[in-house]
């Protein structure tokens, strides 16, 4: 039984993680059928500016995001109770909503035919370029970064903060001298995550970069346009290096759960400027996010944004007529990825719990890898592997598998966090009372892991619904998905269609989230 599970999980990980990654690396070293380093040398020559641009963007985004995320996290845990729930809701909304909606709203306001620059003020301000990319990536990373930072502060023992206050340290001193140093591992993890994600983001530079390009966007253009596969693969592979460093640097950081149950019962209360700065940041963030969603809603019922602001239902209707199929495929693939991920994560967590240390370390690398490598890299890997097969693999299957394995890391750690909370004597008790392995699974493990598998499902489902980079090369004119259509609408400036699609996607994700919680609450 256990051996069979090992074989199944092992072959799955090898086939859907190791093979694609290896395929991309191989492709980058294979020019015209021969082993060659020429693609890599190209990176150092004429593409060197792109490398510099990529790292400049990633560094700037990290430098901007981390302080802001820390401020928001401080507001969440140590700030005034007013607005805490609203901020949490907006944060969660921003992490599950489609990517690039920030960029799109930005262009709707400041773009070539933007509401502010063109219609109202006629400003001569160029929104495109380095500054636009950094601002928009910061906005899109802020949600995840804040949730990670809040989790880091949440893990700090409140008794230590009370001890510091009791010993006479004022609240801000306590925050800086006690809470922040203790939260540092989590904050570092958040910073590294932001760095890697902004390094591999190709959509934002494409939309708001203008002539400013980075490796990820250039790699995308190269794959779509010229088709210099080795060069594009080398570019992607170069972006993998920081992820691998991150993987090596990150020790067993557990409890990386996105299910925020913030008690907020902290004795620490900030006063004065230290108190209102986080408040201001929080309300500013909420205002911007609400403006983003407001604009998208408005855009979806406006005839031609920037030119003709009459109300229309044309975009929503055309969505229904032309994109229903893609939307349905998105839903099916995402539900499959979510369910599969929850089950596979639970199985892996259970297997790894009893595995020898060396095996556990190796498996951890393979599980984390898809989560950390750039999406396009992972997607190209699937493309290379599936096209080398003698038979046609259905696109829907590839998309579902891609989304499942990309989110396998959070799914596994969620189940692992669940297992860690289960008293090991419970398993002994089942067996002592006469139950075998099957009973242990059915009567004890599954019921107790269910809330954690639900978190896995919701996370993987939401990620799959909005996944773009990993699957953009897997779709075809005959097999389209909603998130890629959204991406292409923005890319071609069709803000009406894009807004309608973004609205529908967000609504669908929220509905499934709500439904899943409702089901779990009724059962539990």
């Amino acid at each position, binding site marked *: 039984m256990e051996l069979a599970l090992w074989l199944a999980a092992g072959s799955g990980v090898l086939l859907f993680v190791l093979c694609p990654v290896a395929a991309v690396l191989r492709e980058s070293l294979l020019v015209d059928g021969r082993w060659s380093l020429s693609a890599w040398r190209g990176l150092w020559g004429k593409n060197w500016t792109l490398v510099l641009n990529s790292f400049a963007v990633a560094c700037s985004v990290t430098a901007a995001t981390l302080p802001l995320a820390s401020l928001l996290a401080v507001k969440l845990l140590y700030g005034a109770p007013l607005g805490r729930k609203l901020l949490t809701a907006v944060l969660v909304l921003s992490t599950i909503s489609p990517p690039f909606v920030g960029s799109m709203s930005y262009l709707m306001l400041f773009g070539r035919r933007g509401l502010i620059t063109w219609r109202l003020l006629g400003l001569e301000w160029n929104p495109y370029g380095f500054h636009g990319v950094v601002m928009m990536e910061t906005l899109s990373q802020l949600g995840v970064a804040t949730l990670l930072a809040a989790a880091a502060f949440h893990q700090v023992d409140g008794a230590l903060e009370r001890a510091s206050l009791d010993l006479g340290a004022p609240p801000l001193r306590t925050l800086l001298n006690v809470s922040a140093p203790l939260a540092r591992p989590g904050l570092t993890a958040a910073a590294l995550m932001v760095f890697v994600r902004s390094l591999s983001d190709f959509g934002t530079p494409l939309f708001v970069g203008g002539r400013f390009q980075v490796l990820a966007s250039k790699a995308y253009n190269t794959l779509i346009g010229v088709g210099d596969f080795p060069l594009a693969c080398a570019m992607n592979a170069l972006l993998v290096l920081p992820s691998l460093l991150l993987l090596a640097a990150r020790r067993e950081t557990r409890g990386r759960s996105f299910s925020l149950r913030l008690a907020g019962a902290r004795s620490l209360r900030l006063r004065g400027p230290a108190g209102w700065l986080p408040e201001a940041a929080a309300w500013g963030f909420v205002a911007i996010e609400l403006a983003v969603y407001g604009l998208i809603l408005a855009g979806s019922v406006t005839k031609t944004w920037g030119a003709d602001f009459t109300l229309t239902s044309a975009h929503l209707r055309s969505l229904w007529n032309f994109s229903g199929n893609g939307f349905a495929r998105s839903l099916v693939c995402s539900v499959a990825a979510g369910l599969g991920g929850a089950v596979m994560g639970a199985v892996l967590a259970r297997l790894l719990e009893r595995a020898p240390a060396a095996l556990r370390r190796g498996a951890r690398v393979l599980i984390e890898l898809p989560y950390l490598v750039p999406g396009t890299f992972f997607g190209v890997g699937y493309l290379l592997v599936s096209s080398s097969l003698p038979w046609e693999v259905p696109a829907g299957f590839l998309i579902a598998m891609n989304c499942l394995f990309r989110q396998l890391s959070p799914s596994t750690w969620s189940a692992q966090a669940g297992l860690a909370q289960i008293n090991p*004597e419970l398993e*002994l*008790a*089942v067996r002592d009372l006469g*139950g075998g392995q099957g009973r242990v699974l059915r*009567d*004890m493990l599954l019921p107790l892991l269910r809330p954690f598998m639900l978190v896995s499902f919701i996370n993987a489902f939401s990620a799959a619904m909005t996944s773009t980079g990993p699957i953009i090369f897997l779709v075809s004119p005959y097999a389209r998905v909603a998130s890629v259509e959204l991406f292409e609408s923005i890319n071609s400036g069709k803000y009406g269609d894009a807004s309608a699609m973004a609205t529908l996607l967000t609504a669908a994700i929220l509905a499934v989230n709500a439904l899943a919680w409702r089901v779990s609450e009724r059962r539990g």
Partner: protein
Amino acid sequence: MLSFENVSFSYGAAKALDGLSLALAQGELLTLLGPSGCGKTTTLQIAGGFLFPDSGRVMLDGRDVSTLPPEKRPTATVFQSHALFPHMSVEENVAYGLRVRGTPRTERLRRAAEMLERVGLDGYLKSRVQELSGGQQQRVALARALVLNPQVLLLDEPLSSLDARLRVRMRSEIRSLQKTLGISALYVTHDQEEALSISDRVALMQGGRLMQTGAPEEVYFSPQNDFAADFIGDAFPVMLEGRRRLLRPDQIAVAEDGPLTGTLISRTFLGASADWLIDWQGQTLRASMPSAAEPAHKIGGAVRFAILPSRERGE
């Protein structure tokens, strides 16, 4: 009934049990007593089938059960953490073992209710286990094991999570329940008072070996070695007339007309009793006496006392 024949067990390189032989009689409550790491819990887990011996045999009613898995063994365990299923009600927890055995629903609920009444939890059938106090959870764990009518009841430090008063009450309840049901039980504890008060026999363990087995009075009054003397009853070594002897605090009798004289170093008040540390010829003695009979004293002052002979069993 249950017997260990020359059983050894190792965790990797660490030897946990070293040739243990021990037999539990029908209807007897035998306590495994010893410091942490002495092998007592390992012994219990081997009895329950959670571990299999590296060598030696475990016999149950003349049958070799050494490699029989826990679900096939006619033993039932009360776990240290109680190990109650958090997603089941009190009633479902107690009925679970019967459910696994395929007992019909009405029958198993009836028997669960019966057993819960026996342990004094008849109003709590539908309660969630998290809503119960520590003592009540303890009773549920006990009922869950007893309802299966096991041949041997195994108890792994079952009272260690309870507070001192409740511990005293629960141990007499466990004892009377075990006696009325006439069930054989193997009980693990590191608390000597608990072991002495609850057992028919005590098996004292250290380093994976049996140090002494006997009735509580026997192990207390006639320790066969230094370890036994020290672990049960706080004995301390003293050189008397050129010979090393083990004395217990109740053997030092402080009295006006005592033949020996020492100096009082310190005094500790313990409620019902008081402990004195006395310096005598460069050796430190410990005296224990009822507080009500404690003489007037001054730290640093002279103390007259006598050393009583150690009592033998039954005196």
